[in-house]
């Protein structure tokens, strides 16, 4: 069965309770966080619209991070993208390749939301979901979550004509289904994230059976580096863009080291 989160951005008010609940529930150390609230604003005073990007793992079905991870630290389970930090070699490919810029390095290993594998595995509910005062978050069967997201969007159309579901199809279908009041770009979320090239899957095969020829290895490796290069380019563009854009919240102090 596939699980998913519902994140309703018409409800989220950017209070960061989820951020702290995740840190305290998962006993995360200083400098590690799995959710970030990033403020976005469009227009000029006083004709403004704006909201928060609630930046967290999207749990892509076709997860590029899983595809590039050479150790299997990142893997798919129940529709979610898990991360076993103990198995992480610290290569940073996931950081480089994620189309949503989610994983970051912390203490030399990858770090991102693993959908509360330990907590949920022992019968709990994801920490972020249980605490959210705006009830913007929900967790459950992906089909039901998707259906509810669609219902919510219908109800939102009066207030938000551009309301939409995000995540039904992106990256093979996300495990984080967003209800968005406006186009995803207004929150700096790519409408259509670049898919994982087929060559990456081949490359994964390469790392395992070393019997494969060096030529194939090189070709596949080049594919991965291609993605990484493209992601670096995107990051650079974004940085330029960020500098142009005003305003980050206090919670968005960009402190993580890579």
């Amino acid at each position, binding site marked *: 069965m596939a699980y998913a989160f519902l994140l309703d951005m018409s409800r989220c008010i*950017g209070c960061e309770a989820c951020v702290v*609940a995740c840190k305290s529930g998962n006993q995360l150390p200083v400098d590690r966080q799995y959710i970030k609230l990033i403020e976005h604003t469009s227009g000029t005073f006083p004709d403004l619209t704006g909201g928060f990007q609630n930046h967290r793992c999207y749990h892509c079905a076709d997860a590029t991070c899983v595809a590039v991870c*050479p150790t299997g630290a990142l893997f798919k389970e129940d529709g979610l993208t898990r991360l076993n930090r103990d198995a992480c*070699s610290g290569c940073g490919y996931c950081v480089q390749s994620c189309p949503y810029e989610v994983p970051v390095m912390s203490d030399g290993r990858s770090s991102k939301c693993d959908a509360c594998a330990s907590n949920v595995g022992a019968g709990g509910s994801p920490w972020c979901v249980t*605490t959210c005062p705006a009830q913007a978050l929900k967790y459950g069967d992906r089909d039901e979550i998707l259906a509810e997201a669609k219902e919510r969007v219908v109800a939102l159309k009066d207030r938000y004509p551009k309301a939409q579901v995000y995540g039904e199809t992106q990256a093979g279908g996300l495990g984080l289904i967003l209800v968005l009041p406006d186009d995803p770009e207004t929150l700096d979320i790519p409408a259509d994230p670049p898919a994982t090239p087929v060559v990456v899957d081949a490359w994964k095969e390469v790392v395992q059976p070393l019997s494969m020829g060096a030529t194939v290895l090189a070709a596949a490796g080049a594919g991965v580096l291609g993605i990484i290069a493209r992601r670096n380019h995107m990051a650079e563009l974004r940085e330029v863009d960020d500098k142009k854009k005003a305003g980050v919240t206090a919670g968005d102090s960009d402190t993580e080291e890579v």
Partner: protein
Amino acid sequence: MARVELEITRRQFLAAGVAGTALLGTGMGPGRSNMAMNYPDPPWFSQGDVVTTYNYCDMCPWKCGIAVQTVNGQVMKIDGNSLDPKSRGMLCGRGQAGVSFMNDPDRLQSPMIRTGERGEGKFREVSWEEALDYTAEKILAIKDTYGPEALAIFGHTTGDFWFTDYFAQAWGTPNAAKPSSSLCLSPRDEASTLTLGFPVGGHEPMDWDEIECITLIGSHIGEDSRNTVMQDFIESRSRGAQVIVVDPRFSSAAAKADHWLPIKPGTDTALLLAWINVLITEDRFDRSYIDEWATGLDELTTHIQEFTPEWAAGITDLSAEQIRTTARVMSDRLPQAAIMPGRHVTWYGNDSQRMRAVFILNSLLGVYGRHGGMYFNKSPFLDSYPHPPFAVTGSSGGCSAEPGEESAELPLGPTGKARADGARDTFLRGPTAMQELIDPMITDDPYRIAGLMIYGVNLLNSIPIPSRTIEALKKLDFVLAVDVLPQEHVAWADVVFPEATFLERYDELSTVPYKTPFIQMREPAVAPMYDTMPGWMMARELGLRVGLDAYFKWETIEEYLDIRLRSVGSSLEKMHDAGGVIIQEGKPYLDEFVADGESPFHTASGKIELSVAELAEAGLDAIPVYEPTEEPPDGYYRLLYGRNPLHTFAKTQNTPVLSDLSPENELWINEDEAAALGYVSGDKVWLENDNGDRSGPIAVKATQRIRKDAVFMAHGFGQNAEGLTLANGRGASDTKLMSRYKLDPISGGAGMRINFVRLVEGD
């Protein structure tokens, strides 16, 4: 976001290839097989028996009911108590950081007595016995020389009851004060009492379940992360309620608004008068409600004629059209349309009149006691602990006063002296005004205040004109600081009592006036860390040493609490077993009062007073008028301050998990203004007010989200306390940039938004 250079990546690619090989060598291939070996770790709640204790959160004064989870003697996590009407199982980010607050390594760990000069912060650690004996000796000397009034007691947050209320009243000082009164709520609650006959009380009693239009004036829901309010606001809005937000800043709440009115700061009363004008002149108010429940409509109608939307447009920077439209949005939904009273309302010194205008408008909308308007709060029934009559009653009042309780009588000390804060002289009514007690400490006028006990108030980061406060601290004979952390003012104390946090102590029961009144309990999850002590024990130990034994008859706090709970047929044990909360029935709606033949409005007339004779008699305006506020000088911006969702006042900046996520504040300035000054987001600047006071450095946040005539920052940063390793020197302090305030002649509130700053280069 700093990213790995491609060069490094290439090198790591090769290294990882090797690592992959090595892994394969152990027989663990990628995929799920290795997961089964060591992933995931069992969660903390599977590592031992989970013991749940019930408590109310102390990370802000809102007091959400919490369930504290302890495993193997370690507090692991705090959850919202799902039975509690405030938290309903959810918590804000600060509440989630309660464990981190307790585990802050910078905590005060032992009682201390000063060795160096006051302010130097030099102390020697002493035993509790010595600290308590010494303190008792000092305050008794003050009492003998000057009388009990000469001891002032300041307190804030949930344990303050023992000092500011219980000890102060038993001891006999009317000079006990809370910042939550005159630095926050007083104008609101005095205006409400004058107009409606009851204060707003802790909860703004919006009838969220059925409300159709919510108007916020300077209420920053979302940035002000009071848990319950965020829940209710989002739920009613999602249900379809219209949201009108009046704010010079495009706040998180404004971003959720259907109508945002980016008002010029200081002109809210003009907007409110114009809204009243529209409702009356267009006959869009609830006339039958007013006829039955209010007096003064004729006077109001005459008064309001000239205050047209066109008049207000020129003052507020809003269009007459906007003002009319929003008034109609409200009136189309009355009585399911209410203006939220808000909390921090000490802005410009005319704040009670502004709040009067809010309550008049709400009355015209017919909201009080109506479904979907505002319900009537009721306090839970619970007997007090039996004690001899207090030497002075209602010494601090304010937020500890229950709705319906009159604050008209000035409490007098046993020697017949009234409060030293100038009440009845420089302002009309209301609880003791903390900032007005500072001058008497310096001037001995109207009499000498020689001692000060400070419980949990961050003195130098809450009272405006901190330089004046320091002068007062120098002049006092004795200063006691009770705190969890070595806050800035603690360096100025003679004696320091380190307190056990809310997770390590029993405490007074919390009685919450609400639609369904309820009682919350606090029981310790763990024993006090270090050599700390709960506040109730300090107050009692002091009481026993200064001859107040009769008030502290109980041997243990459990006994005290059990006796109180007996009056509602409960006990500590029963209350714990029932899930930590006792919920009673309220009387929220008007029809219930009508059925009982009572009026809910406890004014002289028994009705809502649109025009207040008491104000006219005192030479004040019986109906609010708009008074212009001072404009910033050229090159200066009005300093606005507010909240950050992860911090409470100046209390949580050193809490490790909160400091990690939100280490300092930012200076919101209009992007065009910043560009003209040559600043971009992230630049560090200092701020200087028109008095030459400085604070900083603070990072610029150049944004379109704010008007050009004001700057904004979250309150509570910019502390200078060496013992706070995380908070010290981080960000800028709004308080340190307040070289003046304007006294509200009605409530004694300190209007603080009349300070102006400019951006300057570093010190």
